[in-house]
């Protein structure tokens, strides 16, 4: 088990390295640079050259990348070109905010997905099953942006139960209750897509397991339903369920951008959006690396859990 984990952890290095090179190149290849972004209508060639020199953007690409890599390996992620704020000061609080949003969304998605999926599987082909599957299709296909705005229109504007945007009340003092009030709509919006997928996979996986020979034998032996589920069905169905759940976490980490923009939730997604618009390379690098890192870790955790559940997977 130990070597399995170790092998998995080692795979982080090439992935992270690869991501950093790709992002760096992509930004360089995109027309327009941060000097243009900052200078706006005043972006004459002379002014741009001055600014590029001042920012070190006129050095050859391998030199720029090398300098960035050296600094990053020693823990210095540089300074944001647009705001001159140190990158770690910018990125870490946003990372925490995104974690709050995505873990709440994932938790919601798991609760909805596991419970509805389980009930649907146990009542396969019933009215309950068919209606929940249609609903999940709707929820999974609806664009996140639109869903978010619809929820805001209903709960914030019409009913005035919840706030429209942000993580905290601007004029107030904050606090846990304030945070929770602000968290509900964005978390629900972000959760609906993953919830739909998890519901379907849970249902499919359970139905599949319920059909297996060993379950039929157990039923024939007269084992009670609760015990049957607990000991013979759920554990066997888990690997595909945990895999899809882990994938949803990865998807959420990178995909909350739209939810964050609609709700002005100050997370990594909206930071990514801003830094792409501003061509803010140090921030872009740090943000994408963090997202990639989290995605890889999430998948490793899922692999480890699956290996713990199913010894057959430990050789992989």
């Amino acid at each position, binding site marked *: 088990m130990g070597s399995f984990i170790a092998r998995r952890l080692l795979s982080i290095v090439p992935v992270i390295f690869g991501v950093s090179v790709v992002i760096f190149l992509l930004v360089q290849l*995109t*027309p*327009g*640079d941060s*000097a*243009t*972004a*900052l*200078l*706006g*209508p*005043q*972006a*004459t*060639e*002379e*002014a*741009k050259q*001055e*600014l590029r*020199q*001042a*920012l070190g953007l006129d050095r050859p690409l391998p030199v720029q990348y090398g300098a960035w890599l050296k600094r990053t390996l020693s823990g210095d992620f540089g*300074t944001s070109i*647009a*705001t*001159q*704020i140190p990158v770690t000061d*910018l990125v870490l*609080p*946003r990372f925490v905010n995104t974690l709050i949003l995505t873990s709440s969304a994932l938790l919601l998605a798991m609760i909805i997905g596991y419970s509805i999926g389980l009930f649907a599987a146990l009542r396969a082909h019933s009215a309950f099953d068919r209606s929940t599957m249609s609903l999940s299709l709707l929820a999974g296909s609806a664009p996140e942006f639109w869903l978010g*705005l619809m929820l*805001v*229109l209903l709960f*914030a*504007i019409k009913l*005035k139960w919840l*706030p*429209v*945007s*942000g*993580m*905290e*009340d*601007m*004029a107030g003092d904050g606090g846990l209750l304030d945070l929770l009030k602000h968290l509900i709509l964005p978390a629900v919006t972000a959760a609906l897509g993953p919830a739909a997928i998890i519901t379907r996979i849970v249902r499919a996986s359970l139905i599949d397991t319920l059909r297996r020979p060993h379950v039929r034998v157990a039923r024939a032996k007269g084992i009670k339903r609760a015990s049957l589920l607990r000991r013979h069905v759920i554990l066997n169905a888990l690997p595909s369920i945990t895999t899809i759940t882990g994938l949803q976490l990865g998807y959420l980490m990178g995909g909350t951008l739209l939810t964050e*923009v*609609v*709700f*002005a939730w*100050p997370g990594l997604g*909206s*930071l990514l*959006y*801003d830094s792409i*618009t*501003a*061509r803010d390379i140090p921030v872009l690098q740090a943000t994408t690396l963090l997202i990639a890192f989290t995605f890889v870790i999430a998948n490793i955790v899922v692999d480890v859990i699956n290996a713990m559940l199913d010894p057959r997977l430990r050789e992989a």
Partner: protein
Amino acid sequence: MSFQQTFRRFTFALALSASAIALAPTAVLAQGGTLIWGMPAETDTLDPHATGGWSTYQVTYQIFEGLVKEDLTKADVPTPELIPGLAKSWTISPDGLQYTFTLREGVKFHDGTPFDAEAVKFNFERFWDESSPNFYKKAKAFVIAYTKWIKSVEVVDPMTVRVTLKAPNYQWLRQGLQSYGQPLMVSPAAVKQYGNEGIVAHPIGTGPFKFVERDQGVKTVIERNDDYWGNKAKLDKVIFRPLQDPATRINALENGEIHMITTPPWDEIERLKGEGFVVTTNKNVPYINFIHLNFKNPALKDIRVRKAINMAIDREGIANEIYRGTGRAEYGMLSPGTDAYDPNFKSFTYDPEGAKKLLAEAGVKDLKLVFEIPQYGTGEIVETWIQRDLKKVGIDVELRKYEWVTYLGKWAGGMPEDVAMNEIGWGMSTPSWIDIVSRCDSAPPGGINSGYYCNPEVDKLLDQAILERDPVKAKEIYQKANRIIMDDAAFVPLVDDLQPIITSAKVKGFVNPPEDWYDLSIVSVE
């Protein structure tokens, strides 16, 4: 009464008075209230020497001041009046080369250090004097339009500073009041303590508000400066909230989470007015939307084609039906909001038949033109209208949309031959804005005259205008240049944006001035 009853009454009375005491100070503190402004973009950096955008200046304008200011407390004026700021008076020598500023006494920066001639000198060294140890390289790119005129800066006495220009330029003071790299006064002590980069976390100026905190992406907070030398602000605090998505901004306004928005979507304005929100516009905001015509494009080299394009577009229609009255059809290339602007200037009227005739005369058939445009949050409605108008006279326009920064790079780099038109919207409260847009030497890469328009007649007039001390005479010269530019059909002016701003009914005293930024010291919130 039993002991228990008395005790209960006593504790109840105690609790009541405690809460009364707890509430009272808050009631006293909240005199002017807190204004929460939902901004369409995040401010970039709070160092006024190393930044440019309007969104940023709208914030730094409250914290920093320059020697000279614009009076933004009056709405119904053609251009904001130049008034004393940190200089209580100034003189310009008869040859126009020496500006002698007499500084205001008793002014302190927000950190308590004194404002004096040494502080002014330090600031000029920071953004202009490359030989000084205080020079900040990054600032140079932003302030270049203002500093390229400066020959020397000297401290005459502790309260007097003299700036000598290389050549006379009577628009120079105004040029230093636009959002890009302004000569605003930053506390030298703060720069020395926190460094050139660190100043963004400690933006210390002399203005009516001082910086409290910045949570990037969430809010920037400033509070009233009770030691301000001038009219103290009414508001206790201002919170700037970046809300990129226009729908979110509108929703937050309706829900009372913010009090003010700029650049509202045009079709929401009527509805919000109906709900009791206050909509203000200003007919002299320096903001003109126009098209650059590419003089390197083979088809557009013929003046008849350029004139036909100008005649084919229904500007009034765009102003009425798309801008819903928050725009005004523009026929010339001078920026509104200046003392040279003439709202009655007319050039091409909407005449599709005339346009078709001209195109026929020019022997042009089945003309296909490429129009490069930036991607907007509001959708490319105006551009699609223009495409339709040109189709009616037989010109096929292909719209090529680009993300904003990509577009800026292309626009600033100059149009290649195969592109016929691009567009932009901006302006300045100095009529010399037209120099930036239309001079021969403003062609890329030296400048941003994206269509490479060049008429030496115009350049000669603009050279004269800048040397003209009397604004009335300067106006005549600028208008002559304007007439030549439009006779050449060098650009297609479209619509002036009247900058609609929507405020909640709780906001009192807000003035929408003929500028793109606002004086918040006169505002209060109930």
